[in-house]
């Protein structure tokens, strides 16, 4: 366990010592929050939007931004693995007695802490900008926890891409290729029920959509236990596919 924490600490130290990277990671969702809430803020006054149970656009949009920050951090996780492979650092890890699972767990640990901090910071900023969390502090914690769980799954897929392609550019390209579709095939920007039927059906297979919908529920109307359960099941299903695949790829490194 201490080795996991130690390896994770190394990954966090690397992020902290690259303040520009940290700043950009946090600044991006903040810019999006400001821009989208200004651009689409008028949607909050539309009757159809309010009929879905949403109070205002900022509170509606904030969960999507929390998930977006997790998507970018997850992408950086795969890039960090690629960097370790390229630099020869991964060979050093693999030629040491540390178990491969421990190496991976160290990265997951670092990703988890980073994502928890990012989620909290974005929620604080959104609240300062006027967003409200109707489900209270517990609802805010639940959103951060669910989004982090999704982020860890996404990070695992990003690591899988890095391990399979062994190519930093390709890993990044795959990540960016999927990031926006994952967000758009959800209610991140626009209520799901007002989207075309086929997009609603696709969103049904998108774990991010469940997390965002649950977050919107928590921020706009309060807790909804059946919705929470559906989200947990979707995340568990995604984890069952993504994490073993990544572990398998890591065993073959």
């Amino acid at each position, binding site marked *: 366990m201490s*080795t996991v924490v*130690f390896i994770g600490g*190394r990954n966090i*130290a*690397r992020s902290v*010592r*690259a303040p520009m990277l940290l700043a950009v990671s946090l600044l991006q969702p903040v810019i999006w929050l400001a821009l989208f809430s200004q651009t689409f803020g008028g949607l909050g006054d539309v009757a159809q939007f309010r009929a879905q149970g949403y109070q205002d656009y900022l509170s509606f949009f904030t969960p999507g931004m929390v998930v977006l920050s997790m998507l970018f951090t997850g992408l950086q996780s795969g890039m960090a693995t690629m*960097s370790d492979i*390229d*630099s*020869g*650092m*991964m*060979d*050093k*890890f*693999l*030629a*040491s*007695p*540390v*178990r491969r699972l421990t190496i991976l767990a160290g990265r997951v640990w670092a990703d988890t802490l980073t994502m928890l901090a990012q989620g909290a910071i974005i929620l604080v900023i959104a609240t300062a900008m006027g967003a409200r969390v109707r489900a209270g502090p517990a609802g805010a914690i639940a959103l951060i926890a669910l989004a982090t769980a999704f982020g860890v799954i996404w990070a695992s897929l990003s690591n899988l891409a890095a391990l399979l392609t062994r190519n930093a550019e390709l890993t990044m390209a795959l990540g960016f290729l999927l990031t926006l579709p994952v967000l758009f095939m959800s209610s991140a920007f626009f209520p799901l029920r007002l989207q075309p039927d086929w997009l609603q059906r696709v969103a049904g297979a998108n774990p991010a959509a469940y997390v965002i919908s649950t977050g919107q529920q928590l921020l706009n109307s309060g807790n909804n236990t059946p919705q929470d359960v559906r989200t947990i099941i979707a995340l568990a299903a995604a984890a069952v596919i993504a994490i073993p695949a990544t572990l398998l790829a890591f065993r073959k490194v």
Partner: protein
Amino acid sequence: MPILPSGASGAETIEVLDLVKVYQGGTRAVDGISLTVRRGEIFGFLGPNGSGKTTVTKILVTLLKPTAGTARITGIDVTASPREVRKVIGYAGQFTGIDDDLTAAENAAFHGILHGLSHAEAWQRAPELLATFALGDVARQRAGRLSGGMRRRLDLALALVHRPKVIFLDEPTTGLDPQSRAALWAELRRLSTEEGTTIFLTTQYLEEADRAADRVAIIDGGRLVAEGAPAVLKDGLGTKATLDDVFLKHTGSKPRSESPARHAMSGILAAAHGKGRRR
């Protein structure tokens, strides 16, 4: 129990028997190599580019699995018990595997802990090891800000941090200036004679191997073409014969020149390549 190669006496630290590695796509990188290295020996593994040196080294340090054959380090099979092998080896590959965002001391301590040292032991060991490699003054500097030669020395230091019984060094002197190379050889000789550490290194610089290695093996096209003490291999090639002549006789190609200018240039290129691969 596999049969040891001829000449093996049981005091061997490295035992390799009929080792074969065929990569996906059919490239036969290693083609039935057998060799032994005794405890405390400095063993030079020589060969032209693409001859299979690095593949053999990566199999011995458990980074690659052989297609056939066996290899044992201090009696432990690299395929059956890779984790046990990793506890007794140190490894520095062709490219510097250091973390540019950590300081030199943090890198050393980090690797010590990876190899099972306690935090206290690792932080105690780091400064003394850095001093050995003339890196004491830059211990608190981030590795990414060190010169190419310093990074190479740091990488070599990391391979020794946990006092391994066997050290594998892939092209260790590439990128080092003459003083650093001399210091490295002196440290390797001290480890070999005083601590009984076995050292397996690949190099294309034959004059170095001639001077420093107890025994050498020459690999070409994945096959071992010569093995023995440098003096024995040169025997019969004339009184002024060098290991270059042995190399030429067995591989049909000239080894890399030892000329300082060329060596320095290759070092600069290797260091630049190593940094360039970082991000």
